[in-house]
């Protein structure tokens, strides 16, 4: 009797599977475990993660790592995934020409036009001129109301802009009701004496006049040329509940188009494409290029810097010379990123066009033998580098109940989406495509403007719910769930994630529907695109119709909705597709590690 361990070192996760080889050559599986990969895949620092995973697995059956007589390590594919994001446009406000935001309690719906008058200068107001009064938080709501009521007889005050959250308090004390916008942080930047238009939307609605170029023209009396220049302002105010537009002579909102740069493909059919042509065009060029040797970007441009950064990062990590690192595939995805507008008065953001890119970096053959040697010394066991990753994954996937040859597998990991097809004769064809779970997380992070990868990762993994009372939540699919113990008030009214460990609060105020939509779109953009790309490459005659079964494995196959999305897409091709269940119990995990143990038998015979 001897214990054999299969070990799969991935970009994200290190998985182990331990089996017992009987004298008759049969394998009896005993235990498995997984740990986060330590260091870049294929480097000696991986051994920490390997040892941790082995220890975890062996302790489950009350054994020690020393009891293992043979470790089989995968010949990890020398491909490492990386992601990057580049915005293509930027919006700049010159001369503070607008405010557009969503204070939770503005007051007095409607629009008004007037010259900006700072409250400290109210005594200098001239009768007969309409004014919009701006008041900083150093004035209390009672003082502001008193001043306005006093001046109201002589001055024509049409609207108010406040720094503090006191619009309703002021309105309730005014004799004459006017629209009031509050929570304008940088009120000190408002220029006095400038004509301005102000609008507060009706409850439950968004503004109509100031989000329309002709609306602004009507209120501020603009000519055709001026109307054209305020169009970006109108555009950036769409969907807001309150806004101010100032008619400053040089004032403007400018949309800069950043020089995006060319992507050069050194390939079977070399080609180049400009980043700003969009993801679809880029992916078409990538697909037409055939086998790609390397991808670079135009020097001194965004895309050039982006690829240089990826290569530099890789060479620093694994010590390979920069020249030996090649980008052999990319997945480009169009996205929108909310970016803080420079020059904004109330923290306004604008959705800027951006492109997310996952790159597949090929290095020299990974030094798996060094890792094997280190493990052999440290654990005092026999260590063998055995078998190609995708082949092992296929072997493991075949332990899913209900599968048979020929079979296609789709290994959806963190950095790459790999596909393999095994024919009835056992012949295997494989491919690695850039882009997987990491890119999905990055898209969620940027599109929702989270600035936090960890919460993006959690949004990806768990369904959403809205806490509607202290005793129930409405799940994103519409279902109501009631809870006996009252819910912690910290979650009240919030959008939360339903994780195994309870609620996770989303700090940013974004509607549940919007989060769900961004999440699903990100998954579709990455995994539907990549599933087709990958399977097309490995399908006999490059025709998807020649594939009948697809087993989904890898971390991203654990996702609660990706397998269903793919199932739907593939049903059009009459392909049976589903989440794998390795050895009938592991779910989509542990395929490669299981394959490594299984292949031991084959090798012995």
């Amino acid at each position, binding site marked *: 009797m001897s214990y054999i361990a299969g070990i799969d070192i991935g970009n994200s996760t290190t998985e182990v599977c331990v089996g017992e080889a009987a004298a008759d050559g049969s394998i009896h599986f005993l235990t498995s475990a997984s740990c986060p990969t330590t260091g870049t895949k294929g480097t000696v620092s991986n051994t920490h993660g390997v040892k941790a995973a082995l220890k975890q697995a062996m302790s489950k059956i009350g054994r020690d790592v020393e009891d293992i007589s043979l470790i089989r390590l995968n010949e990890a594919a020398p491909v490492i995934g990386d992601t990057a994001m580049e915005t293509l446009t930027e919006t700049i406000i010159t001369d503070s020409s607008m405010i557009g935001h969503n204070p939770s*309690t503005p007051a007095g719906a409607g629009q008004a036009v007037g010259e900006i008058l700072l409250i400290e200068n109210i005594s200098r107001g001239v009768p007969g001129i309409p004014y919009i009064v701006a008041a900083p938080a150093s004035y209390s709501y009672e003082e502001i109301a008193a001043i306005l009521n006093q001046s109201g007889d002589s001055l024509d005050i049409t609207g108010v802009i406040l720094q503090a*959250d*006191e619009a*309703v308090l002021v309105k309730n004390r005014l004799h004459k009701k006017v629209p009031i916008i509050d929570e304008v942080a940088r009120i000190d930047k408002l220029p006095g004496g400038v004509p301005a238009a102000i609008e507060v939307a009706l409850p439950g609605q968004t503004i109509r006049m100031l989000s329309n170029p002709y609306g602004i023209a009507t209120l501020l009396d603009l000519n055709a040329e001026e109307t054209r220049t305020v169009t970006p302002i109108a555009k950036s105010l769409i969907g807001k509940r309150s806004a101010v537009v100032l008619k400053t002579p040089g004032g403007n909102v400018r949309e800069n188009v950043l020089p995006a740069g060319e992507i050069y493909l050194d390939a079977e059919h070399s080609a180049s494409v400009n980043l700003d042509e969009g993801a679809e065009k880029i992916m078409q060029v990538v697909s037409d290029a055939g086998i790609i040797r390397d991808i670079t970007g135009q020097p001194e441009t965004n895309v050039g810097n982006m690829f240089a950064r990826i290569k530099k990062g890789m060479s620093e990590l694994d010590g390979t010379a920069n020249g030996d690192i090649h980008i052999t595939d990319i997945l480009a995805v169009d996205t929108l990123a909310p970016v803080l507008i420079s020059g904004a008065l109330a923290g306004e953001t604008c959705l800027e066009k951006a492109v997310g890119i996952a790159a597949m970096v090929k290095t020299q053959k990974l030094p798996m033998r060094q890792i094997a040697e280190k493990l052999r010394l440290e654990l005092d066991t026999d260590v063998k580098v055995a078998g190609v990753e995708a082949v092992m994954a296929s072997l493991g996937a075949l332990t899913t109940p209900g599968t048979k040859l020929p079979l296609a597998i789709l290994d959806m990991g963190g950095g790459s989406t790999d596909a393999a097809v095994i024919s009835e004769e056992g012949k295997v064809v494989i491919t690695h495509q850039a882009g997987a779970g990491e890119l999905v997380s990055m898209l969620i992070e940027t599109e929702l403007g989270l600035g936090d990868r960890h919460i993006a990762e959690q949004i990806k993994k768990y369904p959403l719910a809205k806490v509607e*009372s202290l*005793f129930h939540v409405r799940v994103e699919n519409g279902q109501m769930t009631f809870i006996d113990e*009252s819910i912690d*008030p*910290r979650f*009240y009214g919030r959008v939360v994630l339903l994780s195994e460990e309870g609620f996770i609060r989303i700090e940013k105020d974004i509607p549940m529907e919007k989060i769900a939509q961004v999440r699903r779109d990100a998954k579709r953009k990455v995994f539907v695109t990549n599933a087709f790309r990958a399977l097309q490459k490995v399908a006999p005659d490059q025709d998807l119709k020649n594939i009948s079964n697809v087993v989904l494995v890898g971390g991203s196959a654990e996702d609660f909705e990706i397998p269903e999305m793919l199932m739907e897409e593939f049903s059009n091709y009459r392909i049976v597709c589903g989440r794998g269940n390795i050895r009938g119990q592991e779910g989509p995990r542990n395929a490669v590690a299981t394959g490594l143990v299984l292949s031991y038998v084959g090798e012995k015979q």
Partner: protein
Amino acid sequence: MIIKKPSIFIYANEPDAAVVKEICAGIEEEGVFFELNEMENTNLKELAWNAANDSMLGSGIGIRGTYIAMQMRGIEKNRPVESYQNPDKEQCRKLGANSARAIKKLPFK
């Protein structure tokens, strides 16, 4: 017939005037009605809990001197949703606003 507006109840025992003013401002900015009653009870948690249960809207505030607490119907008496000892102006405003946001089903500040 006396028709009462649905209101947040504030039950107060020897309340500090400045505290009352800022709490009420917090509620008013959110656009909800409130009703202030002086009480004999000196237990802060009970004041808040009773106020929440007596309020038609299920939201109440207790004030005992410069101690304040916010409660919602259905929550245990001993676990007020939010409470402060000697709060500053911002905390009073926030507690008032939250008692209103509880009714509006908006997240707390």
